[in-house]
């Protein structure tokens, strides 16, 4: 299988999860698709490296996190921020929507470093060593950041009612 086929398969399997991981990191949904597209294109350009990487998912998430950071740094070149976020929720989904809003509000309370560790570990399901590789930090640091992040979230009044359910 050549690089492009392999890449296409990888994208088909991971696209939605990568976009959503970028949203949990703090990007808007539209921005998240752009970031994921740029990150994956960068990976394809160096696919031979991705292929050789001991851990493909860790490598791709590392590129995703780096792309997210640089996109945020140069966001001024792109669109203006809008104050109104289109609200698509209605009726049956109300409770689900509320949960999602509470979760994103709570994530925003974490430092960027804690947030990235939480998203990679508990949403992208990377292992401790993979998360460490993806963020370029020692695994001990992953542990201590997670411990602190869990504490912040445990003390978060927004999430306290969700915990009971």
């Amino acid at each position, binding site marked *: 299988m050549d690089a492009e086929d392999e890449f296409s398969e990888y994208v088909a399997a991971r696209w939605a999860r990568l976009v959503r991981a970028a949203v949990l990191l703090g990007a808007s*949904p539209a921005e998240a698709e752009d970031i994921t597209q740029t990150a994956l294109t960068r990976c394809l350009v160096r696919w031979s490296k991705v292929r050789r990487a001991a851990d493909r998912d860790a490598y791709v998430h590392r590129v995703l996190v780096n792309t997210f950071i640089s996109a945020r740094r140069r966001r001024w*070149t792109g669109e203006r921020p809008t104050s109104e976020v289109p609200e698509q929720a209605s009726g049956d989904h109300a409770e*689900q929507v509320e949960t999602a809003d509470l979760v994103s509000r709570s994530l925003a309370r974490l430092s960027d470093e804690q947030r*990235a560790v939480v998203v990679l570990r*508990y949403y992208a399901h990377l292992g401790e060593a993979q998360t460490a590789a993806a963020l370029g930090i020692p695994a001990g640091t992953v542990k201590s950041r997670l411990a602190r992040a869990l504490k912040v979230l445990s003390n978060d009044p927004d999430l306290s009612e969700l915990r009971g359910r």
Partner: protein
Amino acid sequence: MSEEESMSEEKLEQLLAQSADRVPVGEPPLAAMLADARRSTRRRRLGVALGSAAAVVAVTLGASVLPGLVSGHDPEPSVPDPTGAASGTDESLPGPGMRLVGIADVVVEVPEEWGTNETHCGTPMADTVVVDEGVIGLCAVLRQPEVTSVHLSAGRAPVEFHPDVDAEVDGVAVRRESTSCGDAFHGVLTCASTLYFPQREVYVRAESSSESEPEARREVEEALARVHVLADRVAVPGWRSLTFDEQGDGADAYLALLADLGLEAEVVEESHPGMPPGFVLGASPDSGTVVEPGSTVTVTVVAPQDRLAERMSAGVSTDTPEEPDSMREVTDAELRAGADLTVAVGDTVWVTWNVEHKTLRVTSEVTGEDVLRTEEWTWDKWTASAPGQATITLYVEDGTERERLGEVRVTVQ
């Protein structure tokens, strides 16, 4: 707060998945990604690597010819100058009150009072030149008003670089993305333009924020007009921006970069447990500094590690569970010297270590188990359970032997 109420890992996983599932995701733009990647790969192949001696053929055509030199809109990169040799007149550089900063033979003249790498989270905080910036913290800071910056970086064209102009700097062909401005966040208008030297794979990007767009545009044009290609001097190569991969098993990659530029290296070793031996820690003169060929650069690297205990680094952390900000850490150096730590009953104490090594691990032994109680199903984490004294001794093990790394004497109050 009772035990059942605290945030469990499973509950968090569930909440994140629920929250993420609400985000509508379109189809992946596969065709666009494939096309962009092909375009980027082709652009790279056209580049000719900068030879070691830089093939100096001086054809003096005068100073830089940059802004406004448009040879039509050409979506495909052209390769006008096969030699890639500079024709600049070097001796006049830098001008009075200016200094030179560069990558290989591509340099920019900046005012002496400008800083170097005065950034926070990658965002320039004052007028600065940015070169060999290295690891950028995972954080974001908004652009400050009235700041002009010039960023030099080496590497292949990123997929988001969209050149629209062919130009020349000191007789060397460059691709340029013209100045564009955005009025962005909180009214900080910022203009930027990028120059790319395809044969050298070097970028120079100028950014300026100002209250008026003409002012910001002028700053960007002026900054890029001060970009030159030197014929007979070179800049000390970057070491911060070398990745772990590129550093390989030692400083070889960096020493090869120095040799390619005709610079001599003097290697100085420093002991750093847990870091890969040979890893480059610094260069003097620092990266970006313009020097004569044949100059000596002092390179500081991590010393070889003969002892097992030198090959890992560890730490001991403590905090009070109810106070997320109470974490303290005993560092590796403190452990090796023998450290003291005072904690309160109820605090947690745990061992952290650098797990880059697959074959090595850090283990611990505790005296005073009535004082520090091991937490259930862990072996490197304790709860201070009663006032008294305990000692945690850390070892490095490789399966056959173990060696003492250091210890911390814990007083529980």
